[in-house]
């Protein structure tokens, strides 16, 4: 062949018939595999031997699968947290300390309100249990009691009668202790004492019955012990009475700060009742909070140890205790944050009289990550429960608020031991005769999680907690008792008439054990750079691939392939059109039908413009719409064969 042929061949070789302009997808793939930087692909093409090629295809696909799998694992584990625990040593802010007397109101003051109730309780005690020397059976006592209280209207017993239940009978005969008449118990008996009672001699259970408005639906509550029954029954009526007393009067009935706090020391400096703020708790009366951010200053301790904490001596006047409402003597103390509500009923620590109680604190601060790492809430704003406490959010506050809200919804009034929601009143018998029944039902539903409170309330993301270590000592000691008590009596001289007794006093020390403050923080385990570098690692490990490779793959497999397919489809459509109207389409190549048909290969060398000029078909510069051909491939090889100047007969 002439040199001209060679040049043509050279030109042809260098003509861009590959790449995006490749005539078929197969060509495109081959071109991609030869030129990509991704490992494995090239080997598929250049390997010799079918098994080798197959193996290489397998290897490459495995690598791709592994990349996908590992990257999926990385993505799935993206939202994990790591916990870091830091111990700070610094000057610590002293927490707020709320102190309450266990007894809410001075009994001498509150007696007027409760005198009727007390009388009836004593009567009930006498009738039921023969309290105060009478040892005979109930019926007679009931009569005698009835006669002794002639003329008085026993309103409390009438509204919620105390009943006896004969335990061993299945028929549940209840006996009203007031009238002595037996009555059949209808409705559900909430049986609170089943088998414990069998060991007891009397085999009689005390309880009370709560009915809804129409009295057809009743629930009877029985108690294994008379002590519990009386206390519950008393508390029920007590709450009714107190719910009607205005707040100012209640505050006045309770203890003043000067009364409760005999001495006070903080951080080695004397303090007094002015450092305490009043906080009225429905069940514990007046409580006093130390360091509750008065004038926006929060006190702090300079040192750890009992010397530098809060030291108070509390006056617990045991004589003023309500005999039925509370049965234990002492005070309750709770350590909390300044903006937290002191849930003293739930988590308060009791303090014994005639004892020095030392409470060492250790602060732990916990910080959780909220969405999407966990379900916690930052400030409770996104929890659909209105916080009736107007304090910082916590899970317990939310649960209580939820219950109170439901209570107002269902029963029409609010429970006494929790704050009032807006526009609601505390429950009492005058206005809501059957609230107690409603309350008990609701509480059971709450415990069984039927109210949905537990599902709605979420935990808070950050909270501080003080771990308390309590230790006790006898106080005052025998030798110091005398002078100490007399000095304290002299101190309090203007308020107290009588001499102080050691069982009226309790000493309390609250201090930081050390100024170490531990904070447990969650931090995201993975960051985006981290994730990306892990991705990079995986891509590099299996295939030495990179983002550019991915773009390349996208380009080749989607854009170029699609364009090739559309080109061919377009071509087909055109052919089809041309076949339909052969004369009306002069531009179309006369025989494009052979495009895909190998059998028609022979006809492919048709006089197009380039072939007519004996030029190689410039596929890259081809007229849009001119189909790429297989014969370009074949041509190429034919040229190369010719280059060697050996006339090998081709397949043709």
């Amino acid at each position, binding site marked *: 062949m002439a040199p001209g042929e060679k040049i043509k061949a050279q030109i042809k070789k*260098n003509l*861009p*018939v*590959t*790449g995006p302009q490749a005539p078929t997808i197969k060509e495109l793939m081959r*071109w991609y595999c030869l030129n990509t930087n991704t490992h*494995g692909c*090239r*080997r598929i093409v*250049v390997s*010799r*031997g079918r*098994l*080798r090629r197959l193996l290489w295809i397998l*290897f*490459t696909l495995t690598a791709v699968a592994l990349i996908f799998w*590992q990257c999926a694992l990385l993505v799935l*584990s993206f939202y994990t947290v790591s916990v870091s625990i830091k111990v700070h040593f610094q000057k610590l802010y002293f927490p707020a300390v709320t102190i309450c007397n266990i007894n809410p109101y001075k009994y001498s003051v509150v007696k007027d309100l409760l005198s009727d109730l007390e009388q009836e309780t004593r009567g009930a005690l006498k009738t039921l*249990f023969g*309290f105060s020397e009478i040892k005979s059976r109930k019926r007679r006592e009931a009569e005698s009691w009835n006669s002794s209280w002639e003329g008085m209207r026993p309103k409390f017993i009438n509204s919620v009668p105390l009943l006896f239940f004969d335990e061993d009978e299945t028929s549940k005969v209840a006996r009203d202790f007031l009238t002595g008449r037996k009555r059949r118990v209808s409705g559900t008996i909430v049986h609170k004492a*089943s088998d*414990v009672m*069998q060991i007891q001699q009397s085999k009689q259970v005390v309880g009370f019955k709560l009915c809804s408005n129409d009295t057809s639906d009743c629930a009877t509550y029985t108690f*294994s*012990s*008379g*002590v*519990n029954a*009386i206390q519950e029954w008393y508390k029920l009526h007590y709450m009714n009475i107190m719910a009607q007393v205005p707040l100012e009067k209640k505050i006045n009935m309770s203890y003043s700060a000067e009364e409760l706090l005999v001495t006070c020391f903080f951080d080695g400096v004397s303090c007094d009742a002015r450092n305490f703020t009043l906080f009225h708790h429905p069940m514990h009366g007046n409580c006093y909070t130390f360091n509750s951010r008065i004038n926006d200053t929060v006190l702090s301790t300079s040192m750890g140890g009992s010397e530098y904490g809060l030291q108070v001596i509390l006056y617990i006047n045991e004589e003023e*205790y309500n*005999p*039925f409402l509370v049965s*234990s*003597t*002492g005070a309750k103390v709770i350590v909390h944050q300044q903006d937290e509500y002191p849930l003293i*009923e*739930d988590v308060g*620590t*009791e*303090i*014994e009289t*005639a004892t020095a109680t030392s409470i060492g604190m250790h602060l732990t601060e916990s910080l959780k990550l909220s969405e999407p790492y966990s379900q*916690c809430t930052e400030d409770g704003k996104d929890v659909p429960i209105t916080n009736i406490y107007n304090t910082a959010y916590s*899970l*317990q506050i939310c649960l209580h608020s939820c219950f109170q809200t439901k209570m107002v919804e269902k029963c029409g009034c609010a429970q006494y031991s929790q704050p009032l929601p807006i526009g609601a009143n505390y429950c009492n018998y005058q206005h809501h005769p059957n609230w107690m029944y409603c309350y008990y039902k609701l*509480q059971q539903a709450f*415990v069984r999680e039927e109210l949905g409170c537990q599902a709605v309330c979420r*935990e808070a993301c950050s*909270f501080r907690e003080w771990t308390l270590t309590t230790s006790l000592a006898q106080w005052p000691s025998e030798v110091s008792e005398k002078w100490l008590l007399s000095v304290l009596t002299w101190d309090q001289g203007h308020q107290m008439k009588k001499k102080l007794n050691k*069982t009226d006093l309790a000493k309390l020390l609250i201090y930081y054990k050390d100024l170490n403050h531990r904070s447990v923080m969650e931090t995201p385990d993975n960051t985006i750079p981290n994730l990306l570098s892990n991705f990079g690692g995986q*891509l*590099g*490990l*299996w295939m*030495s*691939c990179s983002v550019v490779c991915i773009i390349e793959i996208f380009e080749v497999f989607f854009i170029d392939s699609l364009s090739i397919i559309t080109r061919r489809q377009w071509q087909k459509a055109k052919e089809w059109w041309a076949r339909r109207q052969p004369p009306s389409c002069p531009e179309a190549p006369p025989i494009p039908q052979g495009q895909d048909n190998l059998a028609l290969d022979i006809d492919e060398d048709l006089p197009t413009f380039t072939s007519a000029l004996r030029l190689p078909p410039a596929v890259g510069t081809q007229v849009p719409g001119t189909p790429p051909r297989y014969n370009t491939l074949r041509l*190429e*090889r034919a040229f*190369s064969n010719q280059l060697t100047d050996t006339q*090998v007969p081709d397949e043709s």
Partner: protein
Amino acid sequence: MGVGTQSPGLSPDPYPCPPCPSQGLMKGNEREEQGLGPEPAAPEQPTEEEEALIEFHRSYRELFQFFCSNTTIHGAIRLVCSQHNRMKTAFWAVLWLCTFGMMYWQFGLLFGEYFSYPVSLNINLNSDKLVFPAVTICTINPYRYTEIKGKLEELDRITEGTLFDLFKYNYSNTLGAHPRSRRDLRGTLPHPLQRLQVPSPPHKARKARSADSSVQDNNPQVNRKDWTVGFQLCNKNRSDCFYQTYSSGVDAVREWYRFHYINILSRLTDGSPSLKEDALGNFIFTCRFNQDSCSQANYTRFHHPMYGSCYTFNNHKNSSNLWMSSLPGINNGLSLVLRTEQNDFIPLLSTVTGARVMVHGQDEPAFMDDGGFNLRPGVETSISMKKEGLDRLGGNYGDCTENGSEVLVKNLYGSKYTQQVCIHSCFQESMIKECGCAYIFYPKPKEVEYCDYLKHTSWGYCYYKLQFAFSSDSLGCFTKCRKPCSVTSYQLSAGYSRWPSVTSQDWVFQMLSRQNNYTINNKRNGVAKLNIFFKELNYKTNSESPSVTMVTLLSNLGSQWSLWFGSSVLSVVEMAELIFDLLVITFLMLLRRFRSRYWSPGRGSRGAQEVASTPASSLPSRFCPHPTSPSPSQPGPAASPALSAPPPAYATLGPRPSPLGSAEPSSSACTMGEP
């Protein structure tokens, strides 16, 4: 690819084999050129269907050429393929070695980190409805004194005598007897309590009895510090004895009494009538949980030899009936009023008054010794709990056991595995092995009986020896017993208040005594109140998770690899392929040499035919021996016609269509082709 081909060494000109007309080489060249240009490897297409299953290169050179032009390992190309510039080769070799070293150093670090199985601590703060733990309460007194008095009479009498002898204490309120006359009976019990002189070593104190009596006249108060009190324990044939001594007389008497009490108890246990069922009402006056009364189903009772009747609340095997706490606080917990009178306590055994309470997980035995909490009479004790969980990773990450099934110690308690259970079982096991009897405070297997010095005379000696070995961990119990993987613990903190208050005590006492048909004589000391509740429903779970997982390890390896080498796992496969190819080619060449040496040239064709007909048949046809390899005995005459012969058709690339004809010429042509 681009890097490889642009290096000067890779240009096709200096190849020794280009004129070689063999198709294998030809194809290789073509590929090179195609690689250079953007043109596709079009000519291969028709040959595809004729391709062999596996094809091998004919020579090392060809193989390396192929490898160099197609490999993806960075650096390796420069090293292997830049053969015409020694400087460059050396330079690349150094670089390659450096990066190689760096990479493997880093790999070593990464693997070292992974195989040390590091764990990272996770702290999960959960808040949930909590299952109330099991609560066990014991009356500290094992038996009513009136019931067991008969059995203990002798022991008490002797103790009394001993107390008088040693401490001049006239113990005469209960028995009201004459200690001096009773003293003679002291010998009826083995292991008498004696006073010993401190400086005297134990082995010399064997005559302590006589010394004791000789110093009896001295005033013991003067030099009290020089004396210790103890009792002697000997082995079976009394060849080895030692003294169990105590510095305080109170400890000595108590321990000594306890020791004898154990023996008496072991005789008692076999169906003794004095183990009368103690009714719950005699101990627990009221019981409430979550403002409901407790029922029979809520507790189980067992008898502890030291702590007496114990009641375990909320300890069901099936979890259907368990108490749940949905709210924290004192009103939502367990509240008990207990009887703590000690009128009928065993005077020398029970020195503590009150009750003992323990909080533990369900289906875990209550170890009152280990985790108990004493309650004071006349006081309301409020115990607030906080739950805390700990989950360890087992397996390679830590030494813990899921359910104790793989621990060698047999669980004698029949309960959930805890480390405590295991250690006690382990001790009991060694006790049975060493002493032949079971210690009464731990459960025993059926066939063994409890220790009693009437049956096992030297068990005391054995027990104290074993105890010593146990505490110095020569029994191996602490290594045998592994930690459980998940542990739930309850942190307790207590508050106290006086109960009942002065104003309410009258009616409370009256009511309690009335209802339980029991008169509370001692008023305040006769009762105690207990509240156990959850302080908060938040609970912390400390769990471990592997800090380096397989995924991150692979990612890190990949990062390092990419950083230093830019290669991948597939590159390694390439290397493996290269090595495989090398081996096969070497093998084939050796085979060929062997053949050509031992067969005559005439028979050589037959050999080739044989090779060709082997399953990997077409291999020799592609075979191009390396120029440097010594293959001297190639048939020369057959080569020259092959030189001028036209290149074989593409068909020869296939699975040997003409085995005889083309195998010979092509291989010989190659040998001739290299000058």
